[in-house]
């Protein structure tokens, strides 16, 4: 595993290829022979009804679940993640709607959670000054200005929390960013800001996978659309070949 992690973190591109993925929960077939390909500099949207298997697929990509069968390649190399940490080390970072940040923990402690800057190797002292100044600086890049990053992250708005999670992922070297319903709990303005940030990141060469119920949000920013239906891939469309109206009708069929 150690060797694999090292190898993965050296690769700069960030391309995912999943082929013939199967996943069942007891008698429920959550994913049935699903294949997707995602690459840097594009926004890939996973669309589908409730229970279609979107979150299951995301969880396999991010190492929370392992597929029953199928092949998972990152940058052309086969991987077999059994923890989210392994996916993180390979540059694959996931922003979950509810689990992205910890409300009771301060903003800067959230930012560095699991990646604390160490001052003294023996006692593992956290370099708080560095953590605080970096957090402020990185948040500003995403349009979030907070004077006091020592306050609990629960005092941030929903959109600011998403930005915190995205800023953190990027700062710690994410090449692939996966977002499960990032805008479903946000107002119009906040959604627009988060989506704009995603477009900027894509232009910087990040591979983005976006799960969304809101077709308009997905269509505004997406380049490729994967449609899941009852655990099966019902189609994949390039933005040039499909209108949002057509997408909507395919989904409701």
């Amino acid at each position, binding site marked *: 595993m150690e060797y694999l992690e090292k190898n993965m973190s050296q690769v700069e591109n960030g391309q995912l290829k999943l082929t013939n993925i199967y996943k069942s929960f007891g008698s429920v077939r959550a994913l049935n022979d699903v294949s997707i390909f995602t690459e840097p500099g594009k926004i890939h949207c996973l669309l589908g009804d409730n229970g279609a298997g979107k979150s299951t697929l995301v969880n396999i990509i991010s190492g*929370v679940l392992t597929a029953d069968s199928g092949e998972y390649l990152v940058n052309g190399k086969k991987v077999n993640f059994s*923890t*989210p*940490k392994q996916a*993180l080390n390979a540059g694959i970072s*996931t922003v*979950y709607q509810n*689990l*992205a*940040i*910890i*409300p*009771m*923990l301060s903003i800067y*402690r959230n930012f*560095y*959670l*699991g*990646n*604390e800057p*160490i001052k003294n190797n023996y*006692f*593992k*002292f*956290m370099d*708080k000054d560095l953590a605080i100044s970096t957090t402020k600086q990185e948040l500003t890049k995403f349009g979030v200005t907070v004077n006091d990053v020592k306050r*609990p992250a*629960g*005092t*941030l*708005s929903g959109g600011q929390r998403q930005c915190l999670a995205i800023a953190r992922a990027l700062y710690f070297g994410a090449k692939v960013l996966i977002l499960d319903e990032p805008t479903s709990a946000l107002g119009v303005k906040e959604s627009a800001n988060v989506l704009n940030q995603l477009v900027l990141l894509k232009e910087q060469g990040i591979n983005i996978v976006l799960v969304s119920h809101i077709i308009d949000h997905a269509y505004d920013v997406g380049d490729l659309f994967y449609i899941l239906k009852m655990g099966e891939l019902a189609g994949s469309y390039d933005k040039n070949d499909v209108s949002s109206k057509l997408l909507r009708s395919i989904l409701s069929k």
Partner: protein
Amino acid sequence: MAGLAFVWFFFSIFGHEAFLSLSGARSYLQVSSEIGILAIGVTLLMISGEFDLSIGSMIGLSSMTVTLLTINADISMPLAALITLLIVLLLGFLNGIIVVRTGLPSFIITLGSLFIIRGVTIASSKIITGRTQLGGLETANGYNIMAFIFNNDVQVGGVAFPISILWWIILGIIAFVFLNKTQIGNWIFATGASKETAELMGVPVFKVKISLFIVTAFCAWFIAMTQTTTYGGADVLRGEQKEFTAIIATVIGGTLLTGGYGSIIGTMIGALIFGMVRQGIIFAGADADWFQVFMGIMLIIAVLINGIFRKKYVTG
């Protein structure tokens, strides 16, 4: 803080003037330090989202084991204490591993270990010695070394303050630095606030929790050594209800019962309040039973205040 000032003024005005004297301070600080040392472990564990109700029984077990090993097995007392420590740390580890592996509430698991440990202590003490209390440690081999560490006095202004107060402060400072300034401290807060998110961010939440069960067990052992050297012997019932008093001091100090938030300084103040109230009531000449009433009320008020805090930040 306000609570502390209130309690101090309350007993300064209504209490006997002895409350204000150095020996008054000695008396409540001794009580505070004992509860305080235990509460340090309880606080760290509670911030990580878990309880340990078995610490009181670990005190009884430690005091009995160290005494039996010293007197009956004729092992030098420091070595006996070390063996006892290993046993107690193993029990802490077992508590931890059972809680994280089963995913059951630690409240229930450690309630079980409380009864098991207390029962085994009493039963084996009866089998081995036919008694539930043992004495005569003062003349035992190595007692002096143990007493030097755990039952010493520090002279301040002509009053002999027990060394446990100093240990309380030292352990408090270590725990404070550990919790607030280190990487593991960050993991403790995160684990208690949201185990799932912490896990997703790569925090080894199981290891964090198990380690803190071990730390809590260490605190129980420490208090047991203090008590055993002070009384020169053991009692199987030693430490009874101490798990509750330590939790009370912790909650009065502002730590959330549900985990994710708390402070060592708060807990030290909580223990201080606890000691002041208990001794203050005696100084004031009131029946000591009122102490329980007072602490019960303090506990409920503290939980209410902590709940308001939690609501504010969890929902944003």
